[in-house]
């Protein structure tokens, strides 16, 4: 059997290892499930096109997040309005939890997602990257700011997120 071309192999890795990352970035910008699917598809297409330029200078995760964030911002500007607040699907549960625990977690997750979607875009980018476990150095590469600025932006975004969640509850 012929070996898989490098781009195909890398794309397969992206589609396997970063399913959650790409889906969650899309979720933070688009509440409508149908439009979110379009956004995910758009992100994957952009990643495929950009993969030949990936030289391994940054981690593949940083590369993927960077392209996903940019695509998501373009998506929001194209839609020319903030995401509609569409009810999230009920299957947000974690395995192995009791039904009432699942309900509480689902409710909490719904609140987190809604609060993230209400943040201004620059803070939304920062908080999502924080949640995804990126270091300030990696965040600075993705956002095009200094690591110190990334840290300050994260702090403001976290404070803002908390205050939105407090107000809404």
């Amino acid at each position, binding site marked *: 059997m012929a070996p898989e071309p490098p781009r195909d192999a890398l*794309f397969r890795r992206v*589609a396997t290892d970063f*399913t*959650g990352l*790409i*889906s969650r970035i899309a979720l933070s910008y688009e509440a409508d499930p149908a439009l979110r*699917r379009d956004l*995910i*598809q758009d992100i*994957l*297409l952009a990643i*495929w*096109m*950009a993969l*030949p*330029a990936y030289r391994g200078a*940054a981690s593949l995760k940083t*590369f993927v997040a*960077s*392209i996903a964030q*940019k695509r998501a*911002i*373009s998506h*929001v*500007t*194209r839609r*020319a*309005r903030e995401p509609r607040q569409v009810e999230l699907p009920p*299957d947000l*549960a974690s*395995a192995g939890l009791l039904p009432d625990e699942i309900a509480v*977690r689902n409710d*909490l*997750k719904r609140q*987190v*997602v809604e609060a993230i979607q209400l943040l*201004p*875009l*620059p*803070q939304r980018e920062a908080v999502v990257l*924080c*949640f*995804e*476990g990126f270091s300030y150095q990696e965040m*600075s*590469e*993705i*956002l*095009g*700011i*200094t690591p110190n*600025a990334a840290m*300050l932006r994260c702090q*403001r975004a*976290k404070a803002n*997120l*908390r205050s939105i*969640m*407090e107000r809404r*509850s």
Partner: protein
Amino acid sequence: MTPPDFDELARLWTQEQSPEEQREFQRLARRAGRRAKALEYAEHGMGALLIIAVLAAFFLNSEPATLIVGGLTVAAILWAGWRRHHRREAQLIDAGNREAMLDHALRNARARRNRSAAGLALIAPGFLLGALFKYSVQNGGEIGGFLAAFVASVTSVGWGLAGLIVLLLAMAWLLRSHLAIRRELARLEALRAEYREEARLDRQP
């Protein structure tokens, strides 16, 4: 209610996807891969067709002038393809620099708005001029009585009325897309202001 601490929120945010969501994602990934490959094949195929057409023209008429023009055309096709490919790649991987990205999007949106405004402003006079031209051709260069004939043609069932309906539909479509571009422009400007404000806060001690 006080929200949970940040680590707990992060755990909630990154909790594992359901198998259904994962399957849906894999389906989207396969589709994106197929679509991207199809786009690339179409692009390469179009380039190859153009080059074959130029080479065929050269073999049918192998004059030095044909060779020069053909060679330049092939070089232009290859160069344009290479440039487009690299520009697209550079745009995609140019991490960060949101302001440059928004400036670029704003320039594009303004250009589209101007084109759409020009289209809106010109479509009705263009229609009238076309009708006037047709009237003058049909009347041996005479344009006297055009207005009465025009009103008569658009107020009775016939091609004139059909043309007017098409014009109104085109105007409605143009107006709709113009308003959408203006909304996009306003959103982009607001977004750039948000990024500038955030950058200002980033610099504060």
